[in-house]
């Protein structure tokens, strides 16, 4: 089984962001980066499927991003992916279709049985790349996968909705976007980290094309005003209810 996993380099979110001087992006000074959480689960799903298949085939980690994203591809390789491809773009555009176009061009003739990626990238929060790539390659596509079984050339998945789930059947090859809950990603072992250094990582320019969506301004949401502690026991409940009725007007 040949599996492609598309991953993204994203800032570690446990930080206080500042806006860069040009007002259209966050200041990158001091930011740390990692593989997008949802993409880690996509890598894990790919590795598990390969392992179930007697380790036949390969898992290829594909990342569109700056040169520094080689670090994230190495992490995927350390987890167990066989090789990596960096589609080089100094900045990743806001236009999801441009990203999808570049990924589709790379995936097109790869002969993949499955293309996996995270449901959403937590930096852009675009949540559109998967179905767009599927559309460009005319692949069956299931998003938000939280349960998955592949048997032969068909698959069965559960996709997570708001307060419900859909059970979906699909033929392979297919593209799936992975949601939280499908698995827990493995940590790279020391042996894996050493092996990753020797695995092939191809670098080529991303074919982005036309850009129709751009970030023209970036701001920080207004800070919430400091709240009030009303008390340390049930004795504070009447005051809370009064404030909910008269001040917040939500009761």
């Amino acid at each position: 089984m040949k599996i492609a996993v598309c991953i993204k380099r994203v800032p570690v979110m446990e930080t206080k962001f500042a806006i860069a001087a040009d007002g259209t992006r966050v200041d990158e000074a001091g930011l740390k980066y990692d593989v997008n959480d949802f993409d880690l689960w996509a890598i894990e799903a790919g590795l598990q499927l390969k392992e179930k298949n007697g380790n036949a085939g390969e898992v290829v980690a594909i990342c569109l991003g700056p040169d520094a994203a080689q670090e994230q591809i190495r992490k995927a390789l350390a987890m167990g992916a066989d090789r990596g491809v960096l589609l080089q773009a100094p900045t990743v555009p806001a236009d999801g279709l441009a990203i999808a176009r570049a990924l589709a061009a790379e995936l097109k003739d790869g002969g993949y049985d499955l293309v996996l990626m995270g449901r959403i990238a937590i930096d852009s929060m675009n949540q559109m790349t998967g179905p767009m790539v599927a559309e460009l390659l005319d692949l069956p596509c299931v998003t938000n996968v939280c349960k998955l079984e592949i048997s032969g050339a068909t698959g069965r998945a559960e996709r997570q909705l708001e307060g419900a789930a859909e059970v979906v059947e699909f033929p392979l090859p297919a593209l799936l976007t992975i949601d939280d809950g499908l698995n827990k990603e493995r940590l790279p072992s020391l042996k894996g980290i050493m092996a990753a250094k020797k695995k092939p990582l191809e670098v080529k320019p991303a074919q982005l094309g036309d850009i129709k969506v751009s970030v023209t301004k970036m701001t920080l949401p207004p800070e919430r005003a400091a709240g009030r502690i009303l008390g340390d026991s049930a004795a504070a409940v009447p005051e809370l209810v009064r404030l909910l009725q008269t001040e917040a007007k939500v009761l």
Partner: protein
Amino acid sequence: MANVLVFAEVRAGDLRKVALEAVTAGRQLADLSGGGSVHAVLAGDAGISAKAGALAEYGADSVLVLEHAGFAQYNPEALAATLADKLGGGTYGFAVFSATAQGRDLSPRVAAKLGSGLAPDLTGFTVEGGNVVGQHFNMNGKTIATLTLTGTPAVLSVRPAAFQPVANAKPLATESITSAKDPSASRVKVVELKQGNTGKIDLNDAPVIVAGGRGLKAPEHFKLCDDLADAFGNAAVGATRAVTDEGWRPHSDQIGQTGRNVSPNLYIAVGISGAIQHLAGMRTSKTIVAINKDKDAPIFKIADYGIVGDVFEVMPALTDAVKQARAQG
């Protein structure tokens, strides 16, 4: 002036509230662009046309009804083909979807078929020089990007609850349409819809959310949250990732970075410390109440009102007080 095509989301044969929000957003978009028509697409099994009236009430000039057994369940391939076919005809300047699991599955397919830009999950927008300029939370909800979307037709999705439905009754006009692709030939088939909390209000639709964390100590203690939600009558119960990972609550109830994003009028955090991943999913709530015994819990930094106390003592008292307040109100 631009006409707007709105996709009205249906689940289990019924319109979702987000469909009315999308029509409201579509109406605003048409008006901002100098006054165009709003057409809503309503797809479903036999009988779905009966739901068209609600869309006209909220501002749809026309409802395009796609009624076929092949749409009894979500059918993304046939829907995307049909919507792209309508949008590609030159009639429409904009397409509006809900930024739900369904809308965020369907809108990228349609945009890719058209070669259009997609601005997702907007919380507000204006029209400048014929282009949509909209606000979109990114960086895990910690920053707000203003996106400018060029080209026609431009596709956008609106965040649930960001546009509250505004009644704007139009005379009901329906038009029956057919699928651009044989709905039974779709490769991806939804074979079952598993309804989570049947009969209960969904987290994205609820004006009040009571969310529980590890401070509740055991799954059975979620009854304290359920009771308070029942006292409000219009509340849903959510949970933190720690709790859904433990299996105390279903995964679909998880609020936070990797779960649901919610912004109710009132969010009551019960025994929740306020990890950054949780705050990412609820910090845009209008009013936040926190009940936690640890006075240093980060949740108190963003809560409007806090009680530093034992949830097992405070919650029953709060439930009684809310019942009383609602009985009097």
